[in-house]
């Protein structure tokens, strides 16, 4: 065995001895550390409701900026109507969409929406003129 190898082996034996002599922490220290942990957890738990309150206050300020509850009710109604029209569009809108995009709509008709297809207005004088012909 070379001198270096022997020195390394001996040093490892010293380190082994140190690892075997690992002193246990005193019980009082373990109790203090655990008490600190409890205290930090309790403080964190107390701080949580405050966080929720601050979040609610921030949300309320945002709502007020947008106009308060009436404005939000209007926005909600518009959103629901929009979704309704998207999911169940009236027949006139359904037929208009493809015409607009494939170019088959007659000139001037692209902006006309027949809200009551099939219905016919008759002039009081009996002219029998279709309002759509105007």
């Amino acid at each position, binding site marked *: 065995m070379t001198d270096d190898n022997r020195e390394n082996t001996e040093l490892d034996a010293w380190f082994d*001895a*140190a690892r*075997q002599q690992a002193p246990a922490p005193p019980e009082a220290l373990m109790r203090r550390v655990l008490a600190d942990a409890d205290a930090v*957890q309790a403080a964190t738990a107390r701080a949580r409701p405050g966080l929720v309150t601050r979040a609610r206050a921030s949300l309320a300020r945002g709502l007020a900026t947008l106009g308060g509850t009436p404005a939000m009710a209007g926005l909600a109604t518009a959103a629901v109507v929009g979704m309704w029209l998207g999911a169940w569009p009236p027949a006139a809108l359904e037929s208009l969409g493809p015409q607009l995009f494939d170019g088959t709509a007659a000139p001037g008709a692209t902006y006309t929406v027949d809200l009551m297809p099939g219905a016919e207005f008759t002039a009081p004088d009996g002219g029998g003129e279709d309002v759509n012909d105007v």
Partner: protein
Amino acid sequence: MQTPPDSCGGASDEALLTRFAAGDAAAAQALTERLTPRVYRHALRLLGGDGAEAEDVAQDAMLRLWRAASGWRPGEARVTTWLYRVVANLCFDRHRKARMVALGDIDEPCDTRAGAVPRIVARQRADALQAALDALPARQRQAVVLRHIEGLGNPEIARVMDISVEAVESLTARGRKALGVALAGRRAELGFEDD
């Protein structure tokens, strides 16, 4: 590095810390049992065996861990790496070497169990090593303790000490050489001639 069994089995330190932050008392217990002995022993070795100082450092380091739990970012650093760094900083901040006493000065109960002699020899060797470690420059001592007693790899030691792996290798090599010289005269006295 050996981790003693605890009430949370194989859960990682990081997972336990997340549970601790959520208010889990069992996680607090498990982390205390798992990490406090390691932190205490490391402080003891860096402080030259001063038990009272090591207790203060260990409690302070663990308190900092509890406070850091809620902001802990998983995957960024290992809990043990972070703790070793905190312990070292706390130890280096305490320039009160006058109060230090050697490990061998701490009273130990008389060991009368079978196999007591090998244990006494091991203790004497550990004390001699601690005395030699105390004579090393602080950074060399930290690197040697982390590498050869705590069993950390060089990359992790580099993260703890905030230096390069090459610098860790240099520190541990110089530390080992100095320890070898310091302990050479005690080989026969501590039974190495018989090994």
